[in-house]
């Protein structure tokens, strides 16, 4: 059996939390684009794809920045993994909700 070593869980927590932040951002911008025409137009980064190009690019950039920030904060730390995990699941759930048509179409369009 492998010898148990003390695990510094900061980098894992940073990666997991950032994925939740990225998911939440995607849901948030999907709903915002539906609700606010100005946001929808601003997210049209690439015309053949339309606002989807902006929503996904913003989500990926926010995800990577959040990951870098939390990694630099937690790389040598032991964090409360359960709290981070619950926060991540809540953000993923909100991200899923924000990308669900029945939900975001309630905000217009």
């Amino acid at each position, binding site marked *: 059996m*492998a010898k148990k070593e003390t695990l510094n869980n900061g*980098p*894992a927590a940073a990666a997991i939390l950032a994925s939740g932040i990225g998911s939440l951002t995607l849901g948030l911008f999907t709903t915002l684009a539906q609700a606010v025409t100005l946001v929808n137009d601003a997210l049209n980064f690439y015309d*053949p*794809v339309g606002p*989807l190009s902006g929503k996904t690019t913003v989500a990926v950039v926010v995800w990577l920045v959040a990951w870098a920030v939390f990694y630099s904060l937690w790389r040598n730390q032991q964090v409360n993994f359960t709290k981070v995990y619950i926060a991540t699941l809540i953000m993923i759930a909100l991200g899923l909700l924000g990308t669900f048509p029945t939900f975001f179409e309630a905000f217009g369009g």
Partner: protein
Amino acid sequence: MTLTEREFWTVIHGMGLGTIFLLAFSGGLAGLWSLRPEWVTVAGIQERLHRLIAGTWIMAIMAWLTVITGTYIVYPWYRAKPPTGADLIRFPRSYLLANPHLAEWHKFGMEWKEHVAWLSPILATAVAYVVIRYGSKLAHEQKIRQALMLLFTLAFLAAGVAGLFGAFINKVAPIR
């Protein structure tokens, strides 16, 4: 027996990458599930770890390739605006919206698919990173391993929703 360029990319996006994605998910999830010190020896953990790393990274890479080809190659053909008088059958989005009994395929199916799919590579990459960062130490970290299994499954389900609607929509209004 030929495929147009559009049909070729639709097959690559949906079937080619999707099939590898499915295989990688199975390998990755089985690897995460069985990476337990009470079940396997040190040698066993190392052997499973190679498969686990391969499974999670292949799934993450396939997820990125699928959403990128889908969004930037296939989707523009789907949403292209038809010129006046054009045959709508060559413009799937417009064709679906012009038929009241088919419009929900776009309004619900495509709208959900095009957004939810992007959750998959983000979640799968987080899992793949943690697997390669911690390696065999994960065997002793039940909480982290369980979190990874759930995120990995959510990544698969997000891609599954997208894949399922993609298959149905391509049946109702194929990209030609």
